[in-house]
């Protein structure tokens, strides 16, 4: 019972093509199902009214605002730290003990489950720093969560900047700070933006970490100290407690559309980056 190498090649090729096809079919099955069920639910009222009757009627405007604010806090906090870390790793030091420790920390952070981030955010931001269930607590928790993503993508972007840029800048008498801000950063900014956009995507999609830190209030937030309920949380609560399938589908469809746009933008940035010859 020995299979000839030709037959083996044919079987393997079929299986490999089939697996790729399977992945695409699954993706389409999920996206199309949610969109077909959910897009008809999205209307002007749905986007602009606040939820009424626990979310059974009305819209999801407060959740949309809450999601935007939580994400904004996360990105505003995480970006300077992430990009700064990437600059330190690439420009300020040689590979050694310090870089190894920093890389190990970032890698470990990226493996921590989001529910553990939620536990941490709850005990540290909500309880210990007494920020309560709030947009700020949720945003800070997400900032910690997306930090490794931003570090990694920024570092890759900075590494692709040709070394000549730095040499020219130094030869003109530029200091390290001038070289970084005027020569390296402008050429790496597109790649850094990709990291930030991917971070935004993770914030929008996250549920476990925000449910324990941002609360689940349905009213319109007044400030970043107000509790809120992000769209992903709202969808989860609607679906799990069976409050309203229609509103759940609508929220999920809106989430999918936002995630899709975020991914398309990130990809366009990457492609233009590649096309520019970096």
């Amino acid at each position, binding site marked *: 019972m020995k299979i000839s*190498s*030709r037959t*083996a*090649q044919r079987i393997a*090729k079929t299986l*490999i*093509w089939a*697996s*790729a096809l*399977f*992945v*695409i079919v699954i*993706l389409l*099955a*999920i996206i199309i199902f*949610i969109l077909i069920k959910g897009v008809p639910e999205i209307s002007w009222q749905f986007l602009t009214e606040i939820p009424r009757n626990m979310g059974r009627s009305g819209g999801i405007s407060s959740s949309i605002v809450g999601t935007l604010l939580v994400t904004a806090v996360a990105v505003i906090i995480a970006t300077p*730290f992430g990009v*700064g*870390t990437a600059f330190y*790793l690439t*420009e*300020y*030091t040689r590979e050694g003990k310090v870089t190894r*420790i920093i890389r*190990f*920390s*970032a*890698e*470990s*952070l990226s*493996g921590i*489950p989001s*529910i*553990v981030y*939620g*536990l*941490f955010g*709850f*005990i540290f931001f909500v309880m210990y720093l007494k920020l309560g269930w709030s947009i700020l607590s949720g945003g800070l928790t997400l900032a*910690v969560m997306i*930090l490794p993503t931003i*570090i990694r993508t920024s570092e890759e972007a900075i590494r692709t900047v040709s070394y000549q840029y730095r040499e020219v800048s130094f030869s003109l008498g530029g*200091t*390290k700070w001038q070289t970084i801000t005027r020569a390296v950063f402008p050429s790496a900014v597109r790649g850094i933006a990709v990291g930030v956009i991917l971070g935004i995507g*993770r914030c*929008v999609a996250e*549920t*476990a970490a925000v449910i324990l830190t941002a609360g689940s209030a349905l009213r319109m937030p007044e400030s970043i100290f107000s509790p809120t309920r992000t769209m*992903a949380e709202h*969808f989860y609560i609607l*679906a*799990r407690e069976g409050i309203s399938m229609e509103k*759940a589908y609508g929220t*999920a469809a809106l*989430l*999918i559309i936002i*995630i*899709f746009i975020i*991914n398309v933008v990130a*990809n366009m940035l990457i492609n233009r980056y590649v096309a520019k010859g970096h």
Partner: protein
Amino acid sequence: MKINKEKISGTIFLLIALSALSVLALITVFIFIKGVPIIAKVGFFDFVFGMVWDPGNGAFGIFPMIFGSVTVTLGAAVLGVPIAICCSIFLAEFAPAVLSNIVRPAIQLLAAIPSVVYGFWGLLFVVPAIRNHLGGPGLSILAGSIILAIMILPTIISIAEVSLLSLPRHYKEGAYALGLTQWQTIRSVLLPAAKSGIVAAIILGIGRAIGETMAVIMVLGNAVAIPQSILDPARTLTTNIGIEMGYASGDHQQALFATGIVLLVIVMILNAFAQYVTRRK
């Protein structure tokens, strides 16, 4: 003055760069501070190997959850890993440029879909399918494994693909020159050469599966008992925290943090292992 300024900016960047380390330390310290007392009170052995979880009566044994996490994750690996490896081979070796430019962003999108959406989809399709065709309540280890298998695909595919693509060209050329078929080349030259990257990919995928919460909550049934078959419901470490954290207080809340410690330790070991495997090559 100039030199001073340079020094200052260097120090500032170092401080910023230590942020990752600092938050990692903060996370570990705070979760341990909150969780260790209850482990000490119950006893490490009784906590980890205790079979009864009944917070109302002070029984905190998480073995059923550990068992649940391990079985659901193993199931996900059994179902997901072969598909993911095949798909990474497809992208690295078979796909024409046009196709890989469609498949690659599609896989990124798969990674970006909120986990609650996966759970919801599983609840509406996978759970009824299992109930109707295989029996049982449908909410089951099998349903959880199927959903997690899909969710870990992007992680494994992208890392495995990178390690296949980073192999030197002459490996493949040498193999073809010896008259090997494409599959023989992949099986006996490329896969063994990319082994460390692929193993790391699988470990990171497993780490992702064991840490997933929201999708699993919706399809697993969440019963605290050792399941008798893959068609029985189960509860994982993550879902235990996700379900009960909303209303827990006192010892009960501490026990959920202690569940978090166990989860954190498992994931850290997996991560360190993945990093070790990648570095060794």
